[in-house]
């Protein structure tokens, strides 16, 4: 049997968090590549362990090179990349523009859990005035937040 990445303590915490806050279905679209095979396999396993904790999380695995049409559709240019999206009742993917590039380890792991919960709530938590300004955007905005795991 494969060794689990998440320990019992963490699994308990995430399960509790999901039970208390999870609302609508979430779809994780993971883009892997041959050149980053090892880290991608680790992330895949981690994502599977997370999806096991809620029936409302689903995962789709893609290869960024072999399925470049799908990567392009989600504007994913590098791997490993994870799109944290919502899933409508009819199965439509609701893309809120949230991406995690690289391995979600250390502090970034909690960012991943936060992102999943945020998407499940379908609420950015932004103030009304911020929403008004964002609704007036005419051109695409690309934000890249550089982080390190520790």
């Amino acid at each position, binding site marked *: 049997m494969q060794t689990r990445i998440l320990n019992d303590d963490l699994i308990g915490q995430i399960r509790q968090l999901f039970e208390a806050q999870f609302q609508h279905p979430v779809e994780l679209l993971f883009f892997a590549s041959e050149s980053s095979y090892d*880290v991608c396999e680790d992330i895949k396993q981690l994502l599977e362990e997370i999806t096991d904790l809620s029936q409302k999380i689903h995962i789709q695995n893609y290869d960024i090179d072999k399925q470049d049409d799908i990567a392009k559709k989600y504007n994913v240019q590098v791997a490993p990349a994870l799109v944290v999206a919502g899933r409508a009742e009819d199965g439509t993917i609701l893309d809120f523009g949230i*991406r995690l590039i690289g*391995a979600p380890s250390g502090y970034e792991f909690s960012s991943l859990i936060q992102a999943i919960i945020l998407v499940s709530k379908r609420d950015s938590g932004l103030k009304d005035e911020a929403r008004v300004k964002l609704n007036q955007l005419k051109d695409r*905005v690309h934000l890249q937040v550089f982080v390190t795991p520790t």
Partner: protein
Amino acid sequence: MVQAEMIEASEFYELAMRYNVSGVPQTVINEGAGIILGAVSDDILLQEVMRAIDNP
């Protein structure tokens, strides 16, 4: 309209170097039109985004 990526800087070192990332978090708006060092409130983030859009 907004795509926000969290990027692991050590894994994507070249990309981080392109924007001279020396500390984290660092936020790059529209490929360098704006740069925010450190963690800021959503008000400041939005302000910087608007500024970056106005001065491409």
